[in-house]
């Protein structure tokens, strides 16, 4: 093992910032992170073992306990549930003769749940040793179980099984054209740096992750930011390190448009990052790729190599001594790393804990240097703007939301997939296009967004109305609001990083309280309490995760108060302790499930 770790640390040049990349390989080699490996890494990287342990315990795809040689993570997003995930989970466990959440005694296979894996339109989905498999059916599970029992290496599995489709349904401004390699960079360089920045401002491009900050301003602040001791140094822009980071960690359940952009438009993405580097003076860029998209990693590396060979990346871009390169770093299963400062922490080889702000990343980001963090789609749009100009882009969309938005459409509809629309499109238009009927409601922007019901379909996709990072999940009238909200509420409790009290404790309290009502044990007081906890988490949490964790509850309570009332017991008080369900362990141990093995909470008269 010592030799393995020594080779590994050499491969990553003993850089502790690349700790996650190294731990990924340790996990793949031993199916867990042995404590001996932690000790060797401590020595080789000269960082405290506590930093390594805290990282191992933080990320979902690392484990301190041995996992199976085939390590399965089932995507547990609501979109997977809609497609029959729960029954398939039972079937899979039955086929492989093991239980969810455990490693089989022979060490061959382990099955766990994980949050949305980004195959929402081709679910139910799973990851096997990190690689995505979609469209699960009993037949496909039979095939997978067979391959595992025969110990066929994953590399030799039928490619059809591991194929991920793009499902582009509607192309617009960005998806319909692929730029000539280097064209946007050359246009920006010829036009001039400040002039290109002005074009970006004219375009009115706002961040596509959902928050909608003006991209031109972000880049400008990064360019202008000067470290305090260098204020007098006029050469500062050429001398100081800045970073360009692409947030390819789309973890919002129901979002998968970056998967498609990374698969087909990686040149445009890196072109956009390079334009950003020209403007800000950055020499190093990173693509922080979510671990669930491991299948895209080799492809991105190939694109980067191709661009280096063409002098579009590397030391001598345009032979003008402009240097910029891009490195891909993989995440390891943590929704919070989509938050830009948590992402930066993760890039530095640490737990993904959102930082205190100010300072913002544009002044103090990666390694405390000025850093631009933008979404994949933002960089792609920026590349197009650098080539075609701001006016061209600004003619599309609405006054406050320029250009187009790429939506990831999943759930109850005939044609799920990727749709690019001009901003300002109505929800009804989208529903018509994707063939959705008898719609109960739509979750716009994922769990952290808004649930809209069927009398709001005239609302528009735009920053001034329904802002979204791209997630658009459709529910038909056969679906239960309570099942949907419960899935989302559990998601936030699972993904809370635990840094601040309101989110750490609050999301778990909210989960318990919601389950109580969902199971039919809630009284009137419980609903009041639910709202109180929800509002507290929203106002008091440290970052966007906590501030939006109660959104599913608050937005559905607002729209369906009568449904919630019907869900309540007609008594004033219902104890939090459920006598019968607490006997479940005893029933399992004794193998009994007869009438006498159950107890009523209150004796019937």
């Amino acid at each position, binding site marked *: 093992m010592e030799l393995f770790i020594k080779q590994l640390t050499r491969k990553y040049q003993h850089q502790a910032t690349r700790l996650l990349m190294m731990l990924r390989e340790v996990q793949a080699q031993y199916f867990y992170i042995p*404590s001996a490996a932690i*000790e060797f890494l401590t020595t080789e990287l000269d960082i*405290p*073992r*506590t*930093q390594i*342990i*805290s990282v*191992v*315990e*933080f990320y979902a795809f690392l484990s301190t306990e041995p996992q199976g040689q085939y390590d399965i993570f089932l995507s547990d997003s609501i979109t997977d549930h809609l497609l029959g995930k729960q029954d398939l989970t039972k079937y899979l466990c039955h086929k492989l003769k093991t239980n969810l959440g455990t490693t089989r005694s022979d060490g061959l296979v382990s099955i766990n749940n994980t949050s949305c894996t980004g195959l929402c339109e081709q679910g139910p989905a799973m990851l096997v040793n990190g690689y995505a498999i979609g469209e699960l059916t009993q037949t496909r599970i039979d095939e997978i179980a067979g391959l595992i029992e025969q110990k066929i290496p994953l590399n030799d599995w039928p490619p059809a099984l591991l194929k991920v489709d793009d499902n582009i349904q509607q192309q617009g401004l960005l998806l319909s054209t692929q730029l000539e390699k280097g064209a946007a960079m050359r246009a920006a360089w010829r036009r001039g740096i400040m002039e290109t920045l002005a074009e970006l401002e004219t375009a009115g491009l706002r961040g596509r992750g959902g928050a909608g900050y003006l991209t031109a301003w972000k880049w400008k602040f990064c360019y202008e930011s000067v470290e305090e001791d260098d204020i007098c140094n006029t050469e500062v822009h050429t001398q100081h390190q800045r970073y360009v980071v692409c947030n390819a960690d789309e973890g919002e359940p129901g979002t998968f448009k970056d998967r498609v952009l990374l698969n087909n438009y990686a040149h445009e993405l890196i072109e956009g990052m390079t334009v950003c580097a020209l403007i800000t003076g950055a020499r190093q860029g990173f693509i922080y790729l979510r671990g669930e998209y491991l299948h895209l990693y080799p492809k991105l590396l190939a694109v980067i190599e191709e661009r280096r060979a063409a002098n579009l990346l590397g030391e001598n871009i345009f032979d003008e001594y402009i240097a910029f390169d891009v490195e891909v770093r993989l995440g390891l299963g*943590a929704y919070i790393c989509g938050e830009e400062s948590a992402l930066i922490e993760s890039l530095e080889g640490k*737990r993904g804990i959102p930082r*205190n702000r*100010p300072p913002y990343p544009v002044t103090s980001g990666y390694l405390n240097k000025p850093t631009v963090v933008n979404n994949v789609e933002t960089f792609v749009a920026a590349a197009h703007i650098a080539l075609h100009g701001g006016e061209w882009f600004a003619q599309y969309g609405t006054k406050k939301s320029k250009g187009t938005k790429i939506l990831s459409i999943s759930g109850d509809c005939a044609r799920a997939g990727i749709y690019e629309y001009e901003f300002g499109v109505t929800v009804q238009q989208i529903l018509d296009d994707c063939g959705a009927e008898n719609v109960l409601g739509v979750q716009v922007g994922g769990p952290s967004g808004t649930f809209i019901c069927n009398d709001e379909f005239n609302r528009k996709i735009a920053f001034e109305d329904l802002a979204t990072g791209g997630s658009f999940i459709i529910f038909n009238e056969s679906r239960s609001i309570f099942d949907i909200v419960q899935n989302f509420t559990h998601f936030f*409790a*699972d*993904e*809370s*990083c*635990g*840094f*601040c*009290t*309101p989110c*750490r*404790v*609050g*999301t*778990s*309290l909210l989960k*318990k309280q919601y389950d109580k009502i969902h199971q039919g044990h809630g009284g009137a007081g419980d609903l009041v309490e639910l709202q*109180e*906890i929800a509002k*507290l988490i929203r*106002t*008091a*949490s*440290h970052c966007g995760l906590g501030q939006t964790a109660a959104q599913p509850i608050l937005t559905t309570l607002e729209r369906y108060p009568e449904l919630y009332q019907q869900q309540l017991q007609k008594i004033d008080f219902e104890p*939090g302790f459920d006598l019968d369900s607490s006997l479940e362990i005893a029933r399992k141990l004794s193998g009994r499930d007869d009438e006498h093995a159950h107890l009523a909470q209150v004796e019937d008269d």
Partner: protein
Amino acid sequence: MPHIRIDGQQIPFEEGQTIMDAAMAAGIYIPHLCHNPEFTPHGSCKLCEVKLNGRNCSACTFPAADGQEVESNTEELNTLRKRITQMLFVEGNHFCPSCEKTGNCQLQGVAYHLGMLDSHFPHFYAQREVDASHPDIVLDRNRCIFCDLCERASKEADNKNVFAIAGRGINKHLIVNSASGKLGDSDISVDDRACTVCPTGAILVKGEAYKIPIGERVYDKQEIDIVSLETDT
């Protein structure tokens, strides 16, 4: 000199100070647990949340800026702080009457100050490990509130790296930097600042617990707001 206003009271501040620094210097108490002026602010307990331009922010990390109108001692914020304190109580296992730290405990002191009469939320009954492996120091994780002060004190004051926080979400827990994970095998020593900085009874020096009788302890005599301002903690 620039000024901010807290609850209508005008107070001066110096460049680089946070809202908390300015408030403490002016004799205004803002409840807090993870903050200690000796160490880099953390901003995690969220007890010191104040309202600035209608939005909540942590006073201990937010920079003071000229002309800020800050709300702090309001019913709304004090209720919020009480609920957050109750969250800390139900998350861990806190039995004040049998705890060695009673009367000297900041968590207990803040709870009294905020008028907390019950735990309000259902208890988690978390399984937490006690580590008595060190001859001079005991670590009782049941009482840990993840303020991170021991980690910061060990790094910043003791130039060591004894403590860290691991785990995610509600499974967060305090870990010790030694091969066995035990305090007894770490390089902590009893005169480290990390041994005395804990605001609760999670880290205690052995043999000290009852030197001062209950009833004559810090917060038995004075409320936490007065103690905090007098001792600058």
